[in-house]
């Protein structure tokens, strides 16, 4: 049993590493600018927003849930902070209000999922539309420009040679990795993902843990949204709408099981990095963004099917081992 578990983990790791190296190789061959410092930094900058959102999704997916509203949560928070900023509020207050909006979004998702018991996909499908609508109503369907210049630091400044948002992504990844691996809260997340009923019977306060998970996800979406507002100096309701698919794909690609209970944030970041590199290579080669949509969809399906096949063969191995033991 122990051996089989190890086998699978390393297999996923091998596939990820191989994909990563393969894409780096393709990038280097296709364009000589790919491995320059400037391009690598721009990849980091591009992947940060999606990466931060994907971290949040990883937490929720580990609990066996899903947050289809994460993209529109990002848009809603972006619009809220955009409105606050343009109305002349000080930046910390604007960020705080946007954060409060995110917590409210997370609470709504969690109440529907944990308290009422609606399947997460369906609950967040409803809130996805609701948040999008709310963002559209708040912004009256327009994009909000005139973001004050002082706010540009979040998405355009550098810290120690790295884009600030990349630093934020790295810090968040480390914090979440420690929480998932070492803290009780992390263990509870995995336990709920494996078997929510058993977790409840063994004394885990499942409702509380689920609330924290969904709120964490929404808050991370809010951070991503604010970074994007700062980077492009506008706020729009549909910001992040197109992030959902690639984010879920990245989480699954990174080895987190869509059924919950297995996974981690490290793989997710590598998954996002792979997608960011693909789109970067396509941009460098002048391939239209339509191909990227096709590529992300295909990769998602291929990876999920591949994971399922290895999982099935693992089960098969287990069965064989059981039979062997029984016959002996």
């Amino acid at each position, binding site marked *: 049993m122990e051996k089989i578990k190890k086998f699978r983990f390393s297999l996923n790791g091998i596939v990820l590493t191989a994909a990563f190296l393969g894409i780096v190789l393709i990038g280097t061959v296709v364009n000589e600018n790919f491995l320059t410092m400037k391009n690598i930094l721009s990849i980091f900058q591009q992947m940060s927003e999606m990466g931060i959102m994907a971290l949040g999704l990883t937490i929720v997916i580990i609990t066996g849930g899903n947050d289809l509203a994460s993209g529109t949560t990002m848009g809603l928070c972006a619009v809220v902070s955009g409105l606050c900023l343009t109305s002349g509020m000080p930046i910390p207050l604007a960020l705080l209000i946007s954060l409060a909006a995110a917590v409210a979004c997370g609470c709504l998702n969690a109440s529907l999922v944990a308290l009422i018991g609606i399947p997460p*996909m369906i*609950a967040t*499908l409803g809130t996805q539309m609701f948040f999008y*609508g709310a963002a559209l109503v708040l912004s009256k369907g327009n994009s909000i420009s005139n973001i004050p210049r002082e706010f540009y630091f979040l998405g355009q400044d550098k810290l120690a040679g790295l884009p600030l948002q990349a630093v934020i992504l790295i810090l968040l990844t480390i914090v979440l990795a420690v929480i998932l691996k070492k803290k009780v809260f992390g263990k509870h997340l995995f336990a709920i993902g494996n078997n929510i009923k058993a977790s409840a019977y063994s004394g885990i306060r499942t409702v509380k843990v689920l609330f924290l998970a969904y709120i964490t996800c929404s808050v991370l979406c809010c951070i991503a949204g604010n970074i994007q507002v700062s980077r492009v100096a506008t706020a729009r309701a549909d910001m992040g709408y197109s992030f959902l*698919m690639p984010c879920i794909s990245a989480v699954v690609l990174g080895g987190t099981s*869509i059924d919950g209970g297995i996974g981690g944030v490290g793989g997710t970041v590598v998954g996002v990095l792979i997608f960011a590199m693909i789109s970067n290579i396509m941009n460098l080669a002048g391939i239209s963004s339509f191909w990227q949509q*096709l590529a992300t969809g295909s990769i*998602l399906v291929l990876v*999920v099917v591949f994971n399922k096949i290895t999982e099935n063969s693992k089960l098969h191995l287990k069965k064989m081992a059981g039979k062997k033991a029984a016959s002996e």
Partner: protein
Amino acid sequence: MKKLLERRETSVFLILVALCIGLTIYSPTFLSYTNIKNVLVSNTAMGIMAAGMTFVLITAGIDVSVASQMMFSATWLALLAETPLGNPVTIVLAALLIGLVTGAVNGALISKFDIHPIIITLGTNSIYRGIILVFTNGRWLMNLPKWFTGFSSTVFGIPLPVVYALLIFLISAYILKHTYFGRSIYAMGGNREAARYAGVNLKKTVFLTYTYTGVLCGAAGLVLDSILGNCQPSGSNGWEMNVIAAAVIGGTNILGGYGTIGGTVIGVLMMGVIENGLVVAHVPTYWQKLVYGLIIIVTVTIDVLRKKKADSRKQMIEID
């Protein structure tokens, strides 16, 4: 009689009637022939997809690729119409065949590998959309031939798309109610394990369900093209949510096991009337999403709470 009153469809229908009366009082133009025709025709493509979605939801599955499947079919049909092969017969056959293929791919992936349908259809959603966008380079396909738009002409005051939609609703309702396939769908959605022990071939049922939905999406693509007279490959983005919403509003249980085509039709009409009502009442269109989202959340919440209440009345014995 009591049963009829207790059903969700009845209450939604009554709300729909009340809404229509209210709108007529607010603005008499609502009940005009042109406006009613407008509401009906502009929702036919959605209604046809919603019929398929009802099948999927009853099996406790979900298909978020319906809008992409529809546009996939619509785009290839528009391209086919420009070639010498384009004539009414080949177009109809092609619509059904394209839908059959996209649906069968979904069904095969979901049933073969037993992966959650939302993941597979999220993936194929991007794939179908990506293929047509890459092929057309995002270009609009304008000026479809006269014989093509003729599919949606009005005969004796009745718009043909509405007739197609009605026909599809009748066929779908018949399949659900009176065929082995339809009954297996309900059985599977009600209790997967029990259905399996009762001899229902789950894999085959899942495969057929998604394939049937694909065929309907293909047909919806044909109807959409003929109504609009052009085809925008990047268009109708996000319709899948409206389609799901329509089925759910019409009483289809998102957890599987219950749903009717009649209810879904009422749900589609409800969405259409709300959309039209917002326009008639001069409410900015961006309120629409908010209202739809709210309706989904409220109806699903009521559904789940009802099911919980019903379950708590039962004596549950769990055997693992």
